[in-house]
């Protein structure tokens, strides 16, 4: 009796009803009926991603291995851990101001969970490159890029490129020997772009060689610019999945 009273006091008020739409399972409770199953998908923000009903064959784990979903999950995880890392990091380098590298040392030495979150961010990034690639392979082998999904495949290839760029720009930020020289190898290649190779390299490095300007530039690219572009393309990618008729197949 007291329990029901509490429940109705929590649920029967303007604030609760303003948060949960009519038909939300949090508004009046959930009963396992077709109607409530439909409403559970329809009356929350997930409706942007999933329709009320999906093809049965797509549920089989061995059809998708959930690779697209996992890539998105890793993107969210990297955003969350990345925000945490930003609190303890300053993208400053150069003689006398080696703050970035110092921050990395402090992160693992004196920040609670600092090392763990950095590990999650690092391994998550490698895992994301891997899952995005596997997702692409899965889509190819299922012929899922065929009409009407051609354009979404193109968006997917752009997202793969963005994933690589995100990972690569993050690689420089620890500002250790590993980062500096790995990035040197990569950016030297960009200098060989036909016609305006030197200009491309200059813009990317913020100078003629990797230095403090490069660190600041890549930091901004890594935490703001590329994630923003990626989110835009992700939105298009997810929207097109639904508009093109959901998951491909069955084969």
């Amino acid at each position: 009796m007291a329990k029901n009273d509490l429940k109705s006091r929590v649920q029967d008020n303007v604030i609760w009803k303003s948060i949960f739409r009519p038909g939300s399972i949090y508004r009046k409770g959930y009963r396992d009926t077709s109607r409530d199953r439909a409403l559970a998908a329809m009356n929350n923000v997930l409706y942007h991603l999933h329709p009320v009903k999906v093809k049965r064959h797509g549920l089989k784990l061995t059809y998708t291995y959930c690779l697209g979903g996992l890539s998105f999950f890793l993107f969210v995880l990297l955003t969350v851990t990345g925000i945490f890392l930003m609190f303890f990091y300053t993208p400053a380098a150069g003689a006398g101001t080696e703050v970035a590298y110092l921050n990395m040392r402090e992160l693992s030495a004196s920040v609670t969970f600092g090392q763990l979150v950095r590990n999650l961010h690092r391994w998550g990034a490698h895992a994301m490159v891997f899952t995005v690639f596997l997702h692409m392979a899965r889509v190819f082998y299922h012929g899922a890029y065929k009409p009407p999904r051609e354009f979404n495949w193109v968006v997917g290839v752009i997202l793969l490129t963005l994933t690589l760029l995100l990972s690569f720009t993050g690689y420089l930020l620890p500002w250790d020997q590993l980062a500096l020289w790995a990035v040197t190898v990569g950016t030297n290649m960009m200098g060989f772009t036909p016609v305006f190779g030197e200009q491309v390299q200059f813009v990317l490095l913020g100078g003629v060689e990797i230095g403090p300007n490069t660190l600041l530039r890549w930091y901004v690219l890594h935490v703001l610019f590329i994630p923003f572009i990626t989110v835009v393309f992700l939105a298009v990618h997810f929207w097109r999945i639904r508009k093109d008729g959901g998951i491909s197949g069955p084969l």
Partner: protein
Amino acid sequence: MSDEVQLDQEVYDRLISEGKSERIARAKAKAAAVRQAKIAEGQSLGPKPPEQAEKALEEFRSSAGGGGVATKAAAPAESGAAPGGRLTPEERAARVQASLGNGGEAPSRGVPTSSEHTHRLLALVPPAGIQQVQSKQMDKVYTWPHLLLVEFVSLLAMGALLLIASFFLDAPLGSLANPNEVPAINKAPWYFMGLQELLRYFHPMVAGVTLPGVFLVMLMAAPFIDKNPSAKPENRKVANLAFTFFASFWGLLVLIGSFLRGPGYEWVWPWVEGLGFTL
């Protein structure tokens, strides 16, 4: 609020005292005032009294009596209709036709011509105006709980895997970056090792710009090159073979670059000279 919106104060007070809301009381009082005003002007209220309605109906029937349709329905008693001087559907159709000026057989669109049909056509939509939905009926299940459960479990599994890995394996951190000291082993991140390996064989412009550029464009163009409409593996052996070839070739380059290259980017066997690879 001039004299055109008068309230019948008596009615208003009575309704308020009965506990009606102010809005209802005001509306009803206004209606009462209007009614009184009409009576004062000598107008009649409400529907026509039965005798007047009967009279109007008789007039109509006698005037339309010569028409084809009206004669068929000349006996309203058959269909048991016309209570209180109303028209039967047949008569109404005849009346519409008469007003439209064609006394022929063709009934007017949207007007029921017999009392058998109780619904009415509201509009005709041309086929071009209807969105053609071609989707087939498919075997579908509810997203909740089926799909969301699978997704949630795989999300938890991936999260657990990463957490365990992060607990036991620390991300590498070398010594402070020093532009003047080239390390013996100098490698790009693993996903770019294919490019670095290509750099070993080709001019940097080819290995670093042309080949990856062509590769990326080919990848994007795949759906436009592969015109085969079938998605079945047995019908697209060439496409699958080509993708497998390129993917394995790329994977091979990455593996060679990552594990079989050592100091000075020379060929090494990892079990002899150690692993020159950092994630």
